[in-house]
């Protein structure tokens, strides 16, 4: 079990770093958007590149930040039944969910999005807007995000199996997220 737990900690570490990157993207995207709006009126200055970089960052904060959110157990659930079953049942639900829901989805979505990135990379696809950005970075972020999510799934799976065997409680219990 120990090597597996090490692996789980390593994955958590990696995704926490990506989570920090995602945190920064929130503020950066915000400042760019506000700056862009102001400069458009102050100096009639604006460009498609600045508009596009905002949603590139949006894609980044979502795809790179979601695995960290999973680690903190903050993806919203329908907790009608979930809140009334025992801790061990909840762990069991999570284990099955990770194996039968999370892994297949991440793998299938990676399967669909990866060739898209490769294609975009090969033809060096540019935005169709004048002065727009090159497209492959945002197309890369999708499969990378799903891969990181699958990795986090592995880590969560290890932690839950361990908790089930050793009767531990999980570090992050589920609470309804703030909104």
């Amino acid at each position, binding site marked *: 079990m120990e090597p597996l737990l090490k692996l789980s900690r390593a994955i958590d570490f990696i995704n926490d770093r990506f*989570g920090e990157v*995602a*945190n*920064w993207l*929130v*503020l950066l*995207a*915000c*400042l*760019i*958007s*506000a700056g*862009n*709006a*102001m400069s*458009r009126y102050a100096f009639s200055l*604006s*460009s*498609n590149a600045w*508009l*596009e970089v*905002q*949603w590139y960052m*949006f894609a980044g*904060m*979502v*795809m790179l*930040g*979601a695995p*960290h*959110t999973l680690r*903190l157990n903050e*993806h*919203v*659930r*329908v*907790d*009608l*039944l*979930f809140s009334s079953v025992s801790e061990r049942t*909840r762990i069991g*639900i*999570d284990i099955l*969910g990770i194996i*039968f*829901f*999370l892994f*297949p*989805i991440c793998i*299938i979505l990676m399967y669909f*999005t990866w060739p*898209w990135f490769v294609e975009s990379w090969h033809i060096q696809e540019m935005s*169709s807007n004048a002065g727009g950005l090159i497209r492959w970075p*945002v197309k890369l*972020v*999708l499969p990378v995000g799903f891969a990181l999510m699958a990795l986090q799934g592995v880590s969560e799976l290890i932690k839950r199996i361990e908790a089930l065997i050793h009767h531990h409680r999980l570090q992050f219990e589920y609470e*309804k*997220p*703030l*909104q």
Partner: protein
Amino acid sequence: MIPFVRENMAPLMFGGMVLFMLIGFPAAFSLAATGLFFGFIGIELGLIQPDFLGNLTYQLFGIVSNDLLLAIPFFTLMGAILERCGLAEDLLDSIGQLFGPVRGGLSYAVIFVGAILGAITGTVAASVIAMGVISMTPMLKYGYSTRHTMGVIAASGTITQLIPPSLVLIVLADQLGRSVGDMYAGAIGPSIIQVALFCIWVFILSIFWPKDVPALPEEARTLQGWQLWKRCLWGIVPSLGLIFLVLGTIFMGLATPTEAGALGVVGAIALAASYRTLTWKLLYQGMSTTMRITAMVVYILIGARTFSLIFQGVGGKVWIEDLLIALPGGQIGFLLFVNAFIFVIAFFLDFFEIAFIIIPLLAPVADKLGIDLIWFGVLICANVQTSFMHPPFGFALFYLRGIAPPSIKTSEIYWGAIPWVVLQVILVLIVILWPGSVTYWIDRSTRIDPSKVKIEIEQPELPPPLQLGPLPQSQ
């Protein structure tokens, strides 16, 4: 067996979705899993083509390149900063003193501050927490009944939902394919009715149950005359500034809703700095919560799009349409049914799940019945607002439980919320029976579509060029 499945694929898939969601695994994954599971059955049965699933890539790209969804992190960050910057405390303190001498004065103050905060920010949690912490203690101390205190705080915190620039309205506008500006204009009337209803209720209480809502005693009114007015202005002027920065720029067509959200963040940071509450920790915590909420919400959207792509592929859209158009009573019958349905489903699903899963199924039917989608959206918004208040899962109540002293029983919070849920249902009925309450303001608003203010309008992403094989050699 197989012909049965083939015939009833859509209802089976809908049932499957409910089942998968009930298991309690994060909804985003349950939804996507339902979609893919039934997608493969559909392919096996020959209902959909195998490469139909390839459309998923376009759906995903459509989500991340959606400029309007960027408003989610911006408005959330703005709310997270305002929540702790001290503005709400200042407002409540001064307005509470202003209304204090009247019976129910503190309740009116809480409602008005809720409305002002609602006009500044777009998220619910922020204002409920801020108001709960500061107004609960004085209200209980000066003899307001516990139930009423809990109810009025929870209800006022959720006003934000309906008053522009509500995040809920932005998301609904996106799902319904209408402009955010019209959606905001449409929500003005119902927002006013809502605040009026709340105030009327406090007034009724102060006449029939004056003991529940006493006036402030003389010794609690520390500020008098000019001093008091100065304090009020000190709280209200920066609020008006922020309201202009966000709502004003949208209504005047100066900025897109997304940009207005970003400007609001800058304004909120400046305000926090002027209150000397701006710390690095506050800002970073705000960024971090915002990132997690955004990621969670957009993942639900990813799951919902996966689900609805396949659901439409197996004929779900037609099934829902046939089901709902057959309802008796035409428009009104449909609206009553849909609102009752959403009222109930809101016990189990949070707003974003409703917006991303349920609304896309209902919108085409509403459109077909000739229902104005702005009216429909505002109606849904007013309705969903109850989901934040109704026991036992309402978010607002959940927060209140978190910050209320342990001596207050959970049952009192629940009982306190019920009159306000009833008021909200009355609002929904008013809006159903009087569409003019929504459309009156749309006709009056500028005809500029704020979501198209951009100088450069972004072109929709074109599909990549087809990979054609080498041209056949000419003879």
